[in-house]
């Protein structure tokens, strides 16, 4: 019923008593190390919410009537209690959509997942070919994702999602992604690359060119409701008609992020102290943070159009994505770095001596350090001196 949304968007900008859509990153642990990981995942955080804390949080979601949560990570299936939490949520009126790289979807798991009506799965894939995908997500990740899709399809699970982050290297593959989705009875979900987490390090090289932006927009207009976008391309609305969705920045208004240690951020792409509203472990709980945090209250105030005030397209794009601006060092009340009129590129070129903000937390696995040992003799400088490989 997107047609009725028009006036409602204003209400959403003032916030709701509970989020419409909540992202819950269950763990920072991940078996992959994608170059653009928005949560800089890799190692598990020792302060991770316990099973009981997770269950209490799901109870709170149920009380708040949060219809479904998007569970991600890290790789959420790494948590030993993941499957139990899934069952607990879906049997307590909290639907779950979870994102996975697919590596742990065994045939048995696939059958179990297919039998649960309250469940939706997103398999992450950032290339329609192994070459393009693995360059970002790591060797073998394409084959693992395809295998998971085969298993889900074989188990009779239809309508699961193939979740693609649009990059400079895969925009030319959009039709191939659609074909891939059709082959497995899946639905394509295309979202925007954000300069968040490790994404900040690769954004300059990976984000679509302005020509490709237009290509994405035209392709999405052609494919309409068939392709999901998580409302992530509203910054392209300046090209003409709005894409399906609410077309507004929902941060702290209708969406938010709960991270693995219970920190509540305005959106999944804004893991930074600047956008930290509170923690679910506090006395007020998640509902209290959502309803009364000063950060969320300020995000629900009318936002200044700033440098975009005189632009005729402001009503369409609303200045774009807050997180994209923040992590590229642009003012929040100015153009999006990917502004369709090119104002973002100009602003980026004019950044002078701006120190880019770093994410609040970084769980990236460090490159494996060489085992250092005392040389056998003081003149042995080679680290391999005296080392005999095992047979």
């Amino acid at each position: 019923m997107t047609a009725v949304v028009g006036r409602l968007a204003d209400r959403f900008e003032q916030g709701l008593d509970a989020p419409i859509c909540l992202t819950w990153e269950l763990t920072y642990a991940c078996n992959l190390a994608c170059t653009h990981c928005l949560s800089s995942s890799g190692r598990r955080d020792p302060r991770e919410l316990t099973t009981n804390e997770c269950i209490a949080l799901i109870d709170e979601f149920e009380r708040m009537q949060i219809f479904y949560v998007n569970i991600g990570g890290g790789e959420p299936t790494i948590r030993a209690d993941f499957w139990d939490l899934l069952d607990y949520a879906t049997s307590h009126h909290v639907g779950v959509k979870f994102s996975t790289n697919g590596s742990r979807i065994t045939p048995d798991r696939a059958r179990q997942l297919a039998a649960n009506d309250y469940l939706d799965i997103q398999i992450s894939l950032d290339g329609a070919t192994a070459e393009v995908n693995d360059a970002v997500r790591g060797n073998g990740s394409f084959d693992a994702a395809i295998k998971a899709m085969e298993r889900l399809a074989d188990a009779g699970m239809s309508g699961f999602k193939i979740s693609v982050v649009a990059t400079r290297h895969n925009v030319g593959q959009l039709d191939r992604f659609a074909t891939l989705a059709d082959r497995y009875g899946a639905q394509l979900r295309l979202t925007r690359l954000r300069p968040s987490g490790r994404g900040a390090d690769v954004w300059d090289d990976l984000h679509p060119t302005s020509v490709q932006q237009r290509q994405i927009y035209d392709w999405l207009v052609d494919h309409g409701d068939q392709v999901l976008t998580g409302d992530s391309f509203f910054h392209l609305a300046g090209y003409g008609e709005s894409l399906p969705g609410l077309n507004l920045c929902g941060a702290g208004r209708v969406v938010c992020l709960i991270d693995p240690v219970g920190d509540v951020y305005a959106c999944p792409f804004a893991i930074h102290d600047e956008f930290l509203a509170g923690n679910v472990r506090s006395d007020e709980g998640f509902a209290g943070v959502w309803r009364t945090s000063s950060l969320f209250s300020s995000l629900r105030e009318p936002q200044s159009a700033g440098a975009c005030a005189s632009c005729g397209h402001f009503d369409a794009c609303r200045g774009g994505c807050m997180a994209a601006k923040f992590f590229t060092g642009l003012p929040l009340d100015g153009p999006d770095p990917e502004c369709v009129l090119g104002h973002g590129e100009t602003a980026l070129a004019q950044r002078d001596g701006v120190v880019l903000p770093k994410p609040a937390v970084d769980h990236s696995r460090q490159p494996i350090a060489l085992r250092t040992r005392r040389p056998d003799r003081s003149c042995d400088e080679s680290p391999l001196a005296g080392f005999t490989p095992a047979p």
Partner: protein
Amino acid sequence: MAIAVSEEVYDGRRAWALHPQVSLRPESFGALAYHFGTRRLSFLKSPELRAVVERLAETGCGDEALVEVGVPEAEWPRYHQALATLARTGMIVRRDPS
């Protein structure tokens, strides 16, 4: 979508109810309705429409719910239209009057 919905034509003289897999969340503007089967989210744009939908299951027919909520007859066509959309998308379903 994972689960097909039986699309029905709305008729205010018949008995209706919220689909068993639909949850309604009251909001200041009306309500959010979420269908766990189709995963479709809909917006009920007024508290009155929410009251009508909440009452469907306990009234003999859809129009009776309109009367109980006190919707002026001049506004019925608008409500019929909204209810027809909800029926078409499987949010509300026909039931046997009891």
